[in-house]
């Protein structure tokens, strides 16, 4: 229902979309973007983009608006991310109780590293492999393991 109303450009539906998802998305944005002004910028951009690209949701393969919005949020957050000078894990400690944080904490060190570089920094497998001086196949496998861990994590905590 909401999606149909968004497709025709109903302003009340746009407002509803914001009110429904802004809180949950902002929480994630704060985990992805360390600087508040940039985080705010990302949140605004996500919704303004979503209002005009709702048809993209219908062909995205996603089953929920949230996941589709989250995907776009991450893409924008990566663009807003400050250039990395030292690849430490310290910039991650923004929202301690966030779902991404909780998940990150339970991962073994190698999966932590690959997940952080891949999800938070948006680096490709090739780039990560070069950065860590490891074979691509190994990075690929580590990321796959991280995804298995993520599946377990979600099932155990939010099923």
């Amino acid at each position, binding site marked *: 229902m909401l999606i149909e109303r968004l497709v025709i450009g109903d302003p009340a539906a746009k407002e509803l979309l914001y009110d429904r998802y802004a809180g*949950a998305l*902002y929480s994630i944005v704060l985990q992805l973007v360390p600087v508040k002004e940039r985080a705010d910028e990302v949140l605004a951009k996500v919704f303004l983009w979503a209002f005009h690209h709702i048809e993209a949701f219908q062909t995205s393969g*996603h*089953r929920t608006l949230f996941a589709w919005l989250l995907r776009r949020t991450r893409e924008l957050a990566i663009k807003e991310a400050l250039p990395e000078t030292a690849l430490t894990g310290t910039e991650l400690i923004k929202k301690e109780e966030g779902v991404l944080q909780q998940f990150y904490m339970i991962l073994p060190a190698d999966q932590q590293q690959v997940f952080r570089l891949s999800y938070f920094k948006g680096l490709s497998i090739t780039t990560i492999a070069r950065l860590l001086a490891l074979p691509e196949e190994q990075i690929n496998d580590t990321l796959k393991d991280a995804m298995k861990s993520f599946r377990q994590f979600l099932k155990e905590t939010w099923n």
Partner: protein
Amino acid sequence: MELKFYIESGIIESFVLGLASEAEVEELQHMRRLYPELDTEVEFVERRLERAAFDEPAMPPVDIRDRVLQKIRWEQGHAYADPSSNYTFINIQPKDGDHITVHRSWKIFFIIFFIMSKIFLFLAIFYYLKYRMSQEQRSDNLRQMIRQEQTQSPLL
């Protein structure tokens, strides 16, 4: 490929997070066509993630909401220009007796007309000057010819 094994590989989580490669996404799309129950699984995964995020929402600053809503209202005001909108808007431009409105193709017409008129003006001046020059040349030549004849055959 065994479906359960495929699901347990974390491929759906990978897709949902946007970490799946193009090849993996294509494979997933293909598998979803073959196995409709995969769609259900995608929904389960996304709902879990949604629940997780909604568990700890963060209140965004009010000015972001204002900014977004303002943009919505501004766009609504301009919606008659938006072809995808189903709203009908009344054009409230006042009918003013001193002005006329014409089709925008007249703009192109006037620009071309203006340029052409400049070109023609230039050509007119150019060829006039050329004509003048050739006239002067001709009268010069004529004068010269008369002078020559006079010197050659003076009046008796």
